[in-house]
């Protein structure tokens, strides 16, 4: 079922992502949840503002001063990757398609989850639910998820993010960190996401290509919509068209950001052909800086 190429790709991704994971991302996405829990975190001298209930008397007696013992809240998280496989992702103008980038980013997140011994689940969708892999632990499970990411041939070509999030809301009752990896070239996903936001920690990962923001001046070009198959000719020689296209792109990005800001969600923006490690690290660092909720 798996071709040699796919296996090679998985291995490459594993190696590559493993490095990234080790370098920076490991655990970052959960470090916001600290406090009382199952897992021991640290013992340190009591400071003003600490909850008196956290003072560990045994340690205090031995050390001769008040010490608090801190636990990390349930370290074992559930990571859910909702990955868009719609036709629009087959496009990519810069060394890789959006789909390849989606697979890589999703794989990084999955591997980074295993390093933290978290459960990882996968939801593949296009205009329908393509596949659901329930959250589970273990390296083998992650490899399976990566294989699915790379090898799954989507049945549908359209995009329906709303249906995917609805499905996710339905099946995932327990709190999870939900990554929605998509190009968000769709409408009507805002409301389901608001609902998902109530229970889960939703992180939209927006994959985009620079040619969706700006057109180069290359004359006339006939493009085929990967989802609908419709053809359209665009005159990139026209400054008017190029300017309008850029303005539309900016407007779309702004609307996307505004919609998410309303839900108090920060999107993770990743562009094809550009190193995605930096943005991911920067994103998690930013989240961490904002502290616990």
């Amino acid at each position, binding site marked *: 079922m798996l071709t040699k190429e796919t296996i090679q790709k998985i291995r490459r991704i594993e190696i590559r992502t493993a490095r990234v994971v080790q370098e920076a991302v490991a655990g970052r996405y959960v470090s916001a949840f600290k406090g009382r829990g199952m897992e021991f975190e640290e013992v340190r001298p009591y400071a003003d503002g600490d909850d008196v209930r956290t003072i560990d008397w045994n340690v205090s007696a031995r050390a001769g001063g008040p010490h608090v013992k801190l636990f990390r809240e349930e370290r074992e998280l559930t990571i859910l990757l909702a990955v868009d496989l719609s036709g629009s992702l087959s*496009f990519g103008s810069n060394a890789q398609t959006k789909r390849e980038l989606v697979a890589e980013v999703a794989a990084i997140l999955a591997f980074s989850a295993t390093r933290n011994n978290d459960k990882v689940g996968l939801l593949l969708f296009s205009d329908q639910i393509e596949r659901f892999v329930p959250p589970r632990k273990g390296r083998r499970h992650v490899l399976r998820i990566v294989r699915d990411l790379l090898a799954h041939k989507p049945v549908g070509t359209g995009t329906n993010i709303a249906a995917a999030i609805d499905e996710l809301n339905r099946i995932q009752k327990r709190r999870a960190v939900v990554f929605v990896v998509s190009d968000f070239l769709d409408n009507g996903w805002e409301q389901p996401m608001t609902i998902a936001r109530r229970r889960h920690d939703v992180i939209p990962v927006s994959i985009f290509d620079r040619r969706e923001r700006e057109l180069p001046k290359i004359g006339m070009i006939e493009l085929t919509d990967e989802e609908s198959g419709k053809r359209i000719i*665009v005159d990139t020689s026209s400054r008017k068209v*190029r300017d*309008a296209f850029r303005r539309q792109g900016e407007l779309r990005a702004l609307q996307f950001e505004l919609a998410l800001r309303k839900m108090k969600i920060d999107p993770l923006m990743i562009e094809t052909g550009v190193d995605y490690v930096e943005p991911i690290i920067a994103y998690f660092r930013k989240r961490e800086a904002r502290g616990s909720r």
Partner: protein
Amino acid sequence: MTSFQLLASWFLPLALLAPLAAWRFLSSRGRVRIGYSSQALISAAGVSMALRMRLIVPVLRGLAIILLAICLARPVIANQQTKVFVEGAALQFLVDRSGSMRAMDFQLDGKQVDRLVAVKSVGGAFIQGGQGLQGRSDDLVGLITFARYADSLSPLTLDHGYVIDVLNKIQPAKEQSEDGTAIGEAVALGVERLRDAMKNAPMEKGRQPIQSAAIILLTDGENNAGDIDPRVAADLAATYGIKIYSIGVGTRGNAPFPVGVDPFGQQMMRNIPVTIDEVLLKDLAKRTGGEYFRATDTSSLRAIYDQIDKMEKTKTEQRQSMHYTDLAVQSFRFAGYGFPPLLGGVLLLLCAELLLVTTRFRSVN
């Protein structure tokens, strides 16, 4: 008569390739498919004017193909031309310039004139037209004068102006030594000239070789000089198919003849009997199948010429030929406007299309 024709109209169905070419341009077949995320992003940017104008490219290409098909069908403007071929005759004038031609028995414009003046006037009209005569514009005309000797003054030529010029310069013989009437020699010389002309007829456009030859002999006397017998000369003419129209010039009876100037400066006239050897002249005409005429005054002379004119009818022949103007490669005029060759139009259309396709309408795929 001009008309428009297609000489190879079976090429016309090639024009049906035009919509095919236009369709080929507009359709996406054979084009590299370039996928894109969403056409909605593109259509949101609007459509440029150039993209709308792009339709001009298949139009140009289609027009070029249609025009090319028309060019292949060989469009012509057929011009039917009627050419008149003239079978020219050769007329050799033999004009008597003996002293007796000074006899004042002719009238011109109400004035008494001598015979030579009348002959000049009417003969000129016969050659060039006028005085109720049509002229012999298609004929070769030669002029020989004779008295004691025969002189060829003008070869057989179409330059009638020259012939008349020469004709008008003829003077009657004044010296006794050159006076006389050498009819035989004159006829012989005329035959020689005509024969020569028939052999080396000037080949001109629309002109046939000389078909008929005739001698018009004008005299007012009897053959009294020369070594050649007029009858022998006439037989010679008959051998070559040359007719002799002989004209006896002079009134019947006596004719006033200027004999000198009296002491008062008045012209002195004396009536001298007219002696025309009509027997000889008739014989000459008869031997060659011509005719003898007697001109007693100017009007009868004119009537004689008119008769000869009718007898020596110039034969004309009409030939029709088609002249084609190939519209594909020749410029032409239509409805008052000049047009370049159609192939030039094809070239122009193709160049325009090529220019547009490679510049503003350049397409990536």
